[in-house]
């Protein structure tokens, strides 16, 4: 069983000198304590403990099947869980899903899950149920002009990238305190990934985000903090850059190969592929992005 590494947990120490304006001093927005999830017979999460600091992006990392999506579903109450989920000072674990979302969670699911039978406009209208939504619609249209152009089109006829934009836009209409985003680049072509990541970084500036992302390069670009899961437990948490600098850590927890020498960094900006969790890529190999943007 993996121990949480002490040096990493004390993440305020390197962060304080890192020019991080919001710092680690503020109370965490989300505090998860001893979170357990069972799915059928399987015990998926074995007591997670982690925190999400306000106004920054925290990446939830780990190999496939380690329980990242399960964690998000448990936070939303879409999967039954045991343990404490303290959000904005309140234990939300007894609340049903819609209450938690009303309390300030927003969700961008893996595989988008837009309503394919509804038009783009109807998908957005469904999400416009907060007093602030009306004011946020122009922002969403600015961010994703495609959504305005295609407003009368059925969401099911959109491309994967456009559906991802709709899923993001839908979540951004909610003035949420915490955005839960699950694999926003999954299955997208490299050029679309660049576009989505640019929009994401613009949309999530100053927001609090818990981001599940297999593509390490995308995670690196968006996130300041990282929580790494292994075997249903938190194996490491700390600053994203500290994790990326630690090759042993990447190898043991993410399975990122050391085969590529550091010298390749010169071209890595455009090579998304080497940031991936190599050994278990089978499931989403289609999105492998040799060549990049």
């Amino acid at each position, binding site marked *: 069983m993996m121990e949480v590494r002490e040096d990493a947990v004390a993440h305020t120490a390197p962060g304080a000198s890192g020019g991080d304006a919001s710092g680690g001093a503020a109370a965490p927005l989300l505090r998860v304590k001893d979170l357990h999830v069972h799915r059928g017979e399987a015990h998926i999460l074995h007591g997670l403990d982690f925190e999400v600091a306000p106004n920054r992006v925290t990446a939830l990392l780990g190999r496939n099947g380690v329980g990242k999506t399960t964690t998000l579903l448990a936070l*939303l109450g879409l999967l039954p869980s045991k343990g404490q989920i303290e959000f904005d000072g309140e234990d939300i674990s007894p609340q*049903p899903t819609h209450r938690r979302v009303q309390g300030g969670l927003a969700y961008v699911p893996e595989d988008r*899950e837009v309503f394919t*039978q*509804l038009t783009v406009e109807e998908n957005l209208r*469904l999400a416009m149920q907060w007093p602030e939504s009306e004011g946020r619609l122009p922002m969403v249209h600015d961010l994703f002009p495609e959504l305005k152009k295609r407003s009368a089109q059925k969401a099911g006829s959109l491309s994967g990238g456009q559906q991802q934009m709709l899923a993001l836009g839908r979540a951004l209409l*909610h003035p949420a305190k915490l955005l839960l985003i699950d694999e926003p680049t999954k299955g997208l072509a490299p050029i679309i990934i660049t576009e989505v990541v640019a929009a994401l970084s613009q949309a999530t500036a100053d927001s609090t985000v818990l981001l599940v992302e297999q593509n390490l390069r995308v995670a690196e670009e968006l996130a300041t903090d990282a929580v790494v899961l292994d075997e249903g437990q938190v194996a490491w948490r700390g600053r994203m850059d500290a994790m990326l600098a630690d090759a042993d850590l990447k190898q043991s927890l993410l399975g990122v190969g050391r085969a590529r020498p550091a010298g390749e960094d010169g071209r890595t900006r455009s090579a998304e592929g080497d940031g991936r969790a190599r050994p278990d890529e089978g499931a989403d190999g289609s999105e492998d992005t040799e060549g990049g943007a």
Partner: protein
Amino acid sequence: MSLQVFVLLTVTGLGLAGVYFLIASGLSLIFGLMDVLNLAHGLFFTVGSYATWWVMTRFGFIDSLALRFAVAVIVAAAFGLAVGWITERFFVRRFYGDHVTQILITLGLSLSGVALIGGWFSYDPQTFPLPELFRRVVLIAGARIPVSRLLILAISVVLLAALLTFLRRTRHGLIIRAGVENREMVQAMGIDVAKSFTLVFAIGGLLAAIGGVLGAVFFAGVTPEFGLNVLVFAFIVVVIGGLGSVEGTALSAVLVGLTQQYVNFFAGAGIGDLTVVILLAATLLLRPQGLLGEVAR
């Protein structure tokens, strides 16, 4: 065949389709949104037909039979709404996700409803007076068509339009359409889907009860098992149309109603019912998601 016979059969088949649509549309939405196979839906229909019989025979203080019939429609709608609401709120709600219990509880409601109505009134078929207007005939392409058939058709079409308008133009309708496709995602957008569940049951109860009114006119009488008999065909209509699709249900109701009428007339009584079952089997084999359904469930 003569044109007159064909026109009469067509209008009659479309009237039957209207009755099927009214009971099947609620069934389809309930299954689409909540995954509940509501075997009590036939009871909603029976409640509507008995409300009609009750008003038509007991409301003697209203002289005009036409006015009495209008009152019957309103009373039936109110009863249907209430019974649908009660069924969801007090019986089905506790057992979402538990399909076996839902089937048992809605079947139990259905059977006890039949027993209650039969015990209270009678198990014998009951007839009631209809407005004189209903028995008049109009000539369409030389065929003598009873006004009641046209009225059934007209009310069904109006209710279809009303239901589609509700689903397409209101926020509740938007939530229901989204929920039929992906209930969990609707919750994850901060919407309390359970409220829509009750609403859909109430609307389903209302439509089925009006279906019961029209059915009572169509078959010229009511029996306690009336709803159960129609429910069988309503399920077939739902499956052929595609679960959760109102448009599909309407199309399928027309297909089933017409097939039944034509085949029963030309091939012999009962063969039409059998043909409908064959249509169901063919749908399940060739297009399991139904005519306008999106995904096979």
